[in-house]
């Protein structure tokens, strides 16, 4: 049976035609791809070659090619820069806090959503929970500024009325509260959206597993614990890899809108620092050195996370 199948398919793949004959037949598709290739050459590969300015002292007058080479000067500077170390701490801190809090929240929320019996109610909650994903960070900033305002923000008023605090807290004006504030805000924004992937996997679980478990006397929690959660482990691993790969770039939007002189020591993240150095202070070469390092670290993190996940769970991205 297998052999027969192979025989039927064989002629198509084995067939060897001269290069030009084959190419002419395929030309339309190659041309389609070339549009993409051309785009990437201009918008991805040319900027990549622009990284050489990290090894030069870029100035506007001489341009990329005319500016003098300085070797590893900017990379050496990087290790002596107080704000660079500070940015590393903030980026890693916010990422770890964010991954540590958002995964449990998302998974619990997914499981609870999945247990809702009323389909209509479930649909409404889902649609509502997607809403914050669609708003921009500019809008987020408006919302946060008004919700967290020490004078009239509802959060402060609720906390005061419940007796947790005596005086209003300026959440965005304090170093020590900056991390947790932006992490909670980000969870608020993405909680519902992040459930989509998990819910889709859950909807693919064989219903008979649940039936069998029910007959064996497994209650709701047992079914969640022994059927739903194991089924989610693969996708959780994949999402974690993606999160780890994104650590280096964490925090641009929040820092762009919420960073101020009062919280700068804790809101100065790497991607924001690249922007401050590069476009606010116009130090192109130094900024590029940092972003080059970030790119390398990102790719390495992604590959490492993938390898670890492959070893531990047998599941990974590639």
């Amino acid at each position: 049976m297998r052999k027969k199948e192979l025989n039927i398919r064989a002629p198509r793949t084995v067939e060897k035609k001269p290069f030009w004959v084959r190419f002419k037949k395929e030309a339309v598709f190659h041309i389609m791809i070339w549009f993409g290739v051309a785009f990437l050459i201009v918008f991805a590969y040319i900027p990549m070659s622009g990284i050489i300015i990290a090894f030069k002292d870029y100035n506007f007058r001489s341009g990329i090619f005319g500016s003098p080479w300085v070797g590893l000067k900017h990379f050496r500077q990087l290790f002596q820069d107080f704000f660079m170390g500070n940015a590393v701490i903030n980026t890693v801190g916010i990422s770890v806090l964010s991954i540590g809090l958002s995964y449990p929240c998302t998974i619990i929320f997914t499981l609870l959503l999945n247990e809702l019996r009323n389909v209509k109610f479930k649909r409404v909650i889902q649609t509502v929970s997607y809403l914050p994903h669609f708003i921009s960070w500019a809008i987020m900033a408006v919302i946060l500024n008004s919700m967290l305002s020490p004078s009239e923000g509802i959060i402060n008023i609720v906390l005061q009325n419940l007796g947790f605090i005596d005086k209003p807290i300026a959440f965005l004006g304090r170093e020590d509260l900056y991390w947790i504030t932006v992490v909670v805000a980000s969870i608020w924004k993405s909680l519902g959206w992040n459930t989509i992937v998990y819910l889709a996997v859950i909807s693919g679980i064989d219903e008979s597993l649940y039936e069998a478990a029910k007959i064996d006397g497994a209650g709701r929690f047992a079914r969640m614990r022994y059927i739903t959660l194991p089924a989610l482990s693969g996708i959780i691993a994949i999402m974690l890899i993606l999160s780890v790969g994104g650590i280096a770039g964490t925090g641009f939007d929040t820092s762009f809108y919420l960073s101020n002189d009062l919280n700068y020591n804790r809101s100065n993240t790497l991607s924001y620092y690249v922007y401050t150095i590069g476009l606010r202070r116009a130090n192109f070469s130094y900024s590029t050195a940092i972003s080059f390092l970030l790119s390398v670290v990102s790719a390495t993190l992604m590959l490492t996370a993938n390898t670890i996940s492959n070893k531990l769970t047998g599941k990974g991205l590639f």
Partner: protein
Amino acid sequence: MRGNTSSIKMTATINEKIFDVVNVFLMLIVGFITLYPFWYCIVVSFNDGLDATMAPLYFWPRKWTFDNYEFIVTNERTLHAAMISVLRTVIGVVTHVSFTGVVAYGLSKRWLMGRKYYMMFFMFTMYFGGGLIPTYLLIRALGLIDNFLVYIIPSLFSVYDSILIMAYYDSIPGALEEAARIDGAGHFKIFARIIFPASLPIFATIALFNGVGQWNAYFDTTIYTRSDKLLTLQAIMTKMINSAEALQEMNEQMAASGAVDGFATIKPITIRMATMIFTTVPITLVYPFLQKYFVKGIMIGSVKG
């Protein structure tokens, strides 16, 4: 014996009932926490400006007014920004989806010569990039600074989206294409009449994601434009947040346009909220209708990603 099991069952069902009630209650709390901030902003945007600065508002406007919205829709700057936002979203989405869709169609032919190398060339850009400054220098060299096209051209194509689309093309039965070819349809006709209509769900998904991205984008406006003529709604919002001067400017503008007589008690805070609602409403109206598409699209993404 029998009585025993049924009592176990009874407690089980009672427990389940309790769980259900608690669960619904929890979901209502989540729903409230999600919606309240939006509700608050709506309330402020419909409230009188002077009144809003005197005491906090919570669930209902104290002093109703439409002045804030009236100010926005009669303010030339906001209207112009809204037009730019709409233009960049509509043109951006249409060009992005068509360009990416075509490239993905070429890439989806697995038997193509050298496809492996094409894929490597494409995938590499997903893991490594030039970074902020080299990209900025490129945009400048291309003459896209202060040019409307800076919103369109750099986002013509996305490798990630083309992978999503490709995965969807794969799910279309090859027999369909084969049949059309036998009937004498050319490549263009096959794409336009068979592939594109069959892939509408994924195109709707990409269009939504890209549209939201375009509508919400602020960074390109911030760094690639200087004049006011290319300001988008998000950029105006950003200005209102990031600098007190913008609000001052707005006050002066209001005074200059004679608004002081017409809208005696408008304040920046209520204007800001009204602008925010004005900016958010279009997306809020669109996404619930595309929900079933994007749920599917995200799934393809996470499997193929």
